[in-house]
């Protein structure tokens, strides 16, 4: 039984913002059907998170593989984002109860499936949230990490008092 709120080590993230008319071509170049809805797609050790219309955030089991994305800069604006984000893993049987204190979106099983991703706020901190393992990942801008961590820990304590 681990901690319900865990600050994760840094993860390399690369932003892909497709140029006009390039959404499909970008997917072809990467060999994957990039999600057009707010979903996560895994393929060949790479993971692509929808991040807005024509926008995705890419991560990889082997971060070095993300270097290749910079070669397709004729089809998309590519930029490093990992340094600017901090990730938190909220897991365990009370994960949803904890997040209900902070996120104004419906994270129930029926409303937020295993391959869903959402961009919203946790308290006053902007976050991207998706599911991993038996919990949720919250990614925020690095400068907010201390405030978000504090808020998550407080919510974890509050989750001991059921709704």
């Amino acid at each position, binding site marked *: 039984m681990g901690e319900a709120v865990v600050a994760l080590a840094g993860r390399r993230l690369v932003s892909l913002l*497709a140029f*006009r*008319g390039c*959404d499909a071509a970008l997917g072809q170049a990467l060999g994957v059907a990039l999600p057009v809805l*707010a979903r996560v797609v895994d393929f060949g050790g790479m993971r692509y998170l929808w*991040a*807005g*219309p*024509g*926008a995705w955030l890419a991560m990889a089991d082997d971060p070095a593989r993300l270097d290749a994305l910079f070669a397709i800069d004729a089809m998309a604006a590519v930029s490093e984002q990992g340094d600017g984000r901090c990730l938190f893993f909220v897991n365990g049987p009370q994960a949803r109860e904890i997040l209900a204190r902070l996120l*104004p*979106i419906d994270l129930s099983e029926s409303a937020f499936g295993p391959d869903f991703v*959402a*961009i*919203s*706020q946790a308290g006053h901190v*902007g976050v991207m949230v998706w599911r991993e393992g038996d919990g949720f990942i919250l990614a925020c801008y690095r400068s907010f990490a201390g405030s978000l961590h504090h808020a998550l820990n407080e919510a974890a304590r509050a989750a001991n008092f059921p709704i």
Partner: protein
Amino acid sequence: MRLQCPHCGPRGLAEFTYHGDATVQRPVDRGAGSSAAWADYVYLRDNKAGVHQEYWYHQAGCHAWLVVTRHMRSHEVMAVRAAMVRA
């Protein structure tokens, strides 16, 4: 108040920033100076007690600019669409 973002789904008002009237059109710039058309575009607004279109920005979400059709008296939101649709 909640808005149905076409990309993110229903979200609370705190995620959005209101901009203003979506029915006004930026005058085509012909190199001349200010004019009545420009002053109207920047300053003049109708104040309808009925259905209206307005710009909202999903600043805490997908960063899309949205055109919201809303009734000014009942606050009923009739439609929400993205201002720019990707090809």
